[in-house]
């Protein structure tokens, strides 16, 4: 019963919290740029405004264009339901593991890319083409991270990995460090953050994600942007959950444990969001064809993380 309650709370928590995290990142960035910046609650107001507007759909668009925002948002949301945030006691936790998580994000990406191509404008195709190039390196890197985590912890399920780490089964290992580095690089690419993509630009030759959703407006745009925010929250939960799971409620924890877990999750998110804002301010965006070096590096780090497990065993 608590597993069901925990799951339902998780489902609505990720969606409710996601705009706040994005708002906080924006606030940190504007303060660092010397601007006052909007309130961190501005994304909620933006959503309300977008939902009230009518959706404009191009004449040449098919039903894929109109379905894609819903499918994308639902897929990312479903993926976010499976990553433990404040408790590992969730009824849906066994339904998908890290491999399925990668694939669920792949579903969202597939539909967004199709939507970008649906209207038949050059910007949409440009975004879709680049997004798929990035994904074709980021996805394997993420799978290699899962591979090394599964070798260290003996499982691919996020909830079980966290339980294993909390149980003290993992010491400090080279492989874990490499896996963390690879995972952060993948997270940057998957969320379209600097140096891979700039979420704040339009009409630059370098844009990727914004180019795909250029034709969206009204509620469709709200869903596409919401999916991006939930995805950011998901990766924060994943990184903090696996590499710093402390404070997370375990099965059998009382109300106090759950409250502690929630508090710990909020604290971790705000630390990560602040760090992201800081990082994005100090770094410059990369050229498109440099992505391959960056993400190829992530893939190689993931592979090394797997292989180092045996090297450290043998030494």
């Amino acid at each position, binding site marked *: 019963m608590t597993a069901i309650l925990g799951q339902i709370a998780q489902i609505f928590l990720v969606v409710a919290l996601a705009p706040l995290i994005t708002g906080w990142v924006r606030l940190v960035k504007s303060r660092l740029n010397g601007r006052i910046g909007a309130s961190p609650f501005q994304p909620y107001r933006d959503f309300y405004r977008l939902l009230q507007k009518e959706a404009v*759909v191009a004449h040449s668009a098919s039903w*894929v264009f109109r379905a894609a925002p819903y499918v994308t948002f639902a897929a990312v949301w479903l993926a976010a339901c499976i990553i433990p945030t404040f408790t590992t006691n969730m009824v849906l936790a066994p339904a998908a593991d890290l491999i399925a998580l990668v694939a669920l994000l792949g579903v969202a990406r597939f539909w967004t890319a199709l939507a970008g191509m649906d209207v038949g404008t*050059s910007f949409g195709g440009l975004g879709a083409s680049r997004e798929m190039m990035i994904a074709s390196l980021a996805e394997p890197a993420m799978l*290699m991270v899962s591979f090394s985590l599964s070798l260290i912890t003996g499982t691919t399920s996020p909830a079980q990995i966290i339980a294993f780490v909390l149980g003290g089964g993992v010491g400090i290992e080279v492989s874990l460090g490499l896996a963390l580095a690879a995972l952060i690089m993948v997270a940057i690419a998957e969320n379209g953050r600097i140096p891979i993509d700039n979420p704040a630009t339009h009409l630059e030759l370098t844009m990727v994600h914004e180019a795909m959703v250029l034709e969206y407006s009204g509620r469709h745009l709200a869903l596409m942007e919401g999916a991006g925010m939930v995805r950011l929250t998901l990766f924060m939960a994943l990184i903090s959950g696996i590499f710093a799971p402390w404070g997370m409620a375990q099965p059998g924890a009382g109300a106090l444990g759950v409250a502690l877990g929630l508090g710990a999750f909020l604290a971790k998110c705000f630390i990560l969001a602040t760090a992201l804002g800081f990082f994005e301010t100090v770094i410059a965006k990369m050229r498109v064809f440099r992505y391959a070096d960056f993400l190829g590096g992530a893939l190689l780090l993931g592979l090394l993380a797997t292989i180092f497990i045996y090297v450290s065993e043998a030494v």
Partner: protein
Amino acid sequence: MLIASALSALLALAVFGVLAGGEMWRHRVVYLGCAIASLVLLAGGLKHLGQTPGTGPAIVLPIGLPWMAAHFRLDNLSALFMVIVNLGTTAASVFGIGYCDHVPEPRRVTPFFPLFLFGMNAVLISDDAFMFLVSWEFMSLASWLLVLSDHRNEESRSAAFVYLMMATFGTFCLLTCFGLMAGAEGGYSFPAMRLHGMDGLTSFLVVLLALLGAGSKAGLVPLHAWLPLAHPAAPSHVSALMSGVMTKVALYGLIRILFDLHGHVAWGWGAVLMGIGGVTAVLGVLYAILQDDLKKLLAYSTVENIGVVVIGLGLAIAFKDSGEKALAALALVAGLYHIINHSIFKTLLFLSAGAVITATGERSLNKLGGLLNRMPWTGAATLVGALAISALPPLNGFVSEWLIFQSLFKGPSLPHWAMKFGVPVVGAMLALAAALAASCFVRAYGIAFLGRPRSQAAAEAHTLPFSMRWSMAVLAALCIILGAVPVTVTDAVSHVVQPLTGVSFAVSADLGWPWLSPVSSTRGSYSGTVLVMTGLSLFVICIVLVHGFGTTRVRRADAWDCGHRENIVNAQYSGESFAQPLRRVFCSSLFGVKETVTMPDPGDMAPAKLEVRVIDRIWVFLYLGIGRVVGFVADRVNRMQFLTVRRYLLMMFATLVFMLLVVAVRQQK
């Protein structure tokens, strides 16, 4: 009995097909008959698969070689492949009922179509080497005739020639392989071969020859060169069978020899298979991304998927040889699951390519576009196929990839150091192939079915006959069903795996029916059923919330495109431009891709030109190399035709002496 009558019905249909002449209704009758016969065979396979594990009764017919009767038997492995083959053939035959009008020369297709089906089914039930090879040749030659059906096209003729060469080479390897397994006494029936022991060298040669023989039919790199030439050259419903089904019969041959007849393949071969599989998967999908021809793209994607299956088979061999029987069963189930899935979605995608060609007359991606609005049925079914082949949940392609990854993740538990380091590398290749497959099908679907029409033909695409649409709809439904109930499929396949690996595959019991948890419940699990239900509920919640809080108004307008009002259709992304980032990142050294831009002089109104040149290094170095060597040797041997009688007699005498010496030396031993 039912199976025998269905097979004889196929032979009779071939005769009727010859007599059909120009009357279209007779062609339709042949396809309808094929569909019914396939359905009967499908039912026969399913019925056997539903029974408890065990070998079926042997049937011995007094045909074939004078001293040896023909043996047939339907065991679990044959029954599974009978189901796989006849799912595809049923769909293709139903598609053919509507499609046969649109084939360039139906009289060259209809008679051979039932023969092709007969050949594939006969391979599966053969229980001796002779019948196996005869059926195998039947299948190869019938499909060769079908490739040649458009014989006025120069490209088809050369494709058919390459195909014939490769098929001959494959059969030659298999013939030798069976000869070695039968031993000196010539026990050509499969039960005799199972009992026959082998020494080290023979065992090595048997595996090598099986890999060359069956691998060339399945399209393993570097023996894949014929596949993307021959598969697209045939009419689309035949391409669907060649790619979706015939490659599976080749894999059946490989599994039959490596897991059943030979039985004790060393783990090193497992490593070789995994390496070949990984390379095949990555190269196959990279080739596919570079293609402009829709059917060639699909054929290369077949190469990729065969690679994925072979990774699973190689892993199963390594686990089996190391005594990890439960993991061997897992890897083999993963491979077989992928075989089932690929046969369904590849048949679907080739049929939809046929539908596109029928509706527009074009198979080049750059002449298509916007077809989803003109052909909603085909478009929707193709979208399901594209999602499934990109291994996206909750469809079937994802389940088998998930199983292969799960078994790969256990690979480092093998005792060999080569495997500990090799398995992660193969894992990375598989992950790369899976991600590239998604790019490949976003490209194919996005260019062909979305966007605006790139040619007049695409803008005027017409709808299709009932039978063509329904065969695609049923296959698309199967993609969804096999993804949503994975445990039901693995339970059915576990009967097949049991005799091959020694243990049966069972999902961990403590989670129950819809949860697929192959090793233990804490090891990682997946549930398509739960994921579909939850995903659908979230989708509905999403719609309700958005429409509840906001407005539901929609306005149709021109595309915004950042304010660019020019309405040039060619400004859309084309196949080449979509592939450009991937081509630069992955293919520049691998395929020697060269891009040259020719700009006109200032003031000149001529268009700028971008030329892309791709070199297939395997074709250039391996095939053309071999071709040159064969040509050189043939030239030399040619001189022997013009010798004097005296010299011929001398050569005969020398040969005779040599043979006698060989006999004498052997007797000395």
